[in-house]
């Protein structure tokens, strides 16, 4: 596979959220505001890319029996960098994201890409695969965040777009709407791109 193919496969055709149903926890939790979604997406992309690179770099020296622990520790190290960076530079967003930054470690996407791709491929390819998966994940987050923030607050990235006449739907800010929107998204994508077999 060329590098471009790797990127497209992991970002779109095998998108972690809608094809493999991974990483839903944070996809639902942080999407009530678009800014949070964007920061979360960037954080995940950063950790995915660099942990993919590192895991792949040491893949031939990692004993199989402890590879899960090694992968988790590598991922955790990058997530700590993200966390410290957010705490130092964007304290407000860091407070809103709360535990969900730390939860990137147990986000199944990272483990999934580490196991499925980085432990068998070259470092640079793994990095591109990580960026692809991260971009795909961020797109889903931003899409859900867009719908929830637009209807829930009448704004996009905190800028009011719907005027004073708009009555915010408070349900959009609460938990249930996240489940419904993700279900609808999966439904639409399944109908459009994945035809039933036979």
């Amino acid at each position, binding site marked *: 596979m060329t590098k471009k193919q790797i990127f497209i496969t992991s970002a779109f055709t095998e998108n972690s959220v809608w094809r493999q149903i*991974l990483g839903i926890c944070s996809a639902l*939790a942080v999407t009530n505001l678009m800014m949070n979604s964007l920061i979360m997406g960037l954080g995940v992309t950063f950790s995915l890319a660099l942990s993919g690179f590192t895991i792949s770099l040491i893949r031939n020296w990692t004993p199989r029996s402890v590879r899960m622990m090694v992968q988790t520790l590598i991922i955790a190290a990058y997530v700590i960098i993200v966390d410290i960076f957010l705490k130092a530079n964007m304290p407000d967003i860091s407070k809103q994201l709360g535990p969900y930054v*730390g*939860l990137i470690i147990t*986000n199944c996407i990272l483990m999934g890409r580490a196991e499925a791709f980085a432990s068998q491929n070259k470092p640079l390819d793994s990095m591109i695969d990580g960026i692809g998966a991260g971009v795909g994940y961020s797109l889903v987050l931003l899409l859900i965040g867009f719908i929830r923030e637009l209807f829930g607050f009448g704004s996009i990235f905190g800028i009011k777009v719907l005027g004073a006449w708009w009555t915010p739907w408070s349900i959009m800010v609460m938990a249930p709407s996240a489940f419904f929107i993700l*279900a609808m998204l999966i439904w639409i994508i*399944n109908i459009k791109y994945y035809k039933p077999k036979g």
Partner: protein
Amino acid sequence: MDISAFVLFWAAIFTSNILLTNFLGMCSYLSVSREVESSFGLGVAVIFVLTVTAGLNWLVYHLILVPYNIVYLQYIVFIIVIAAFVQFLELVIERYAPALYYTLGIFLPLITVNCAIFGVSLFLVIRNYSFLQSISFGAGSGIGWLLAILMLAAIRRKLKEKLVPHGLQGVGISLIITGIMALAFVGFSGIVQIQ
């Protein structure tokens, strides 16, 4: 935080259910909920591990990380504590209760990567709970998670014979059911506010 541990326990089950309002533990929730029996087994294991690791991580955080000023290592330390405890539990159960091991054993490795376990440990640090509050919050969250997965498994069993639109089959319909359950749980949210 000056909420009594008892209130916190109920609040963790109903008003801020770990799964339905905090979205933690979704992966295993969606994949294991095909059968009621296995959902129950996993749920019980989650309750136990959650309660103990909440206590353990509280002790580790306040007795080791804070005095030695290495709080920034909390993520790595928490993960190691959880993984080590699950491993230890697996050995003990296999040695002393083989029957239980066969029903519960397969779920134990799944628990290490269940974000509900890790999430609760992070919550108790962020919200500054006391030791007693942490344990009751952990137990309550576990029971809340068991409740949610049991409900979904029971509904999915009923759905097996029903026609579901093609695109919604599997995860789609599970998410919609979860959304409806979350709507019902929003009804509890006015009782106590813990976050």
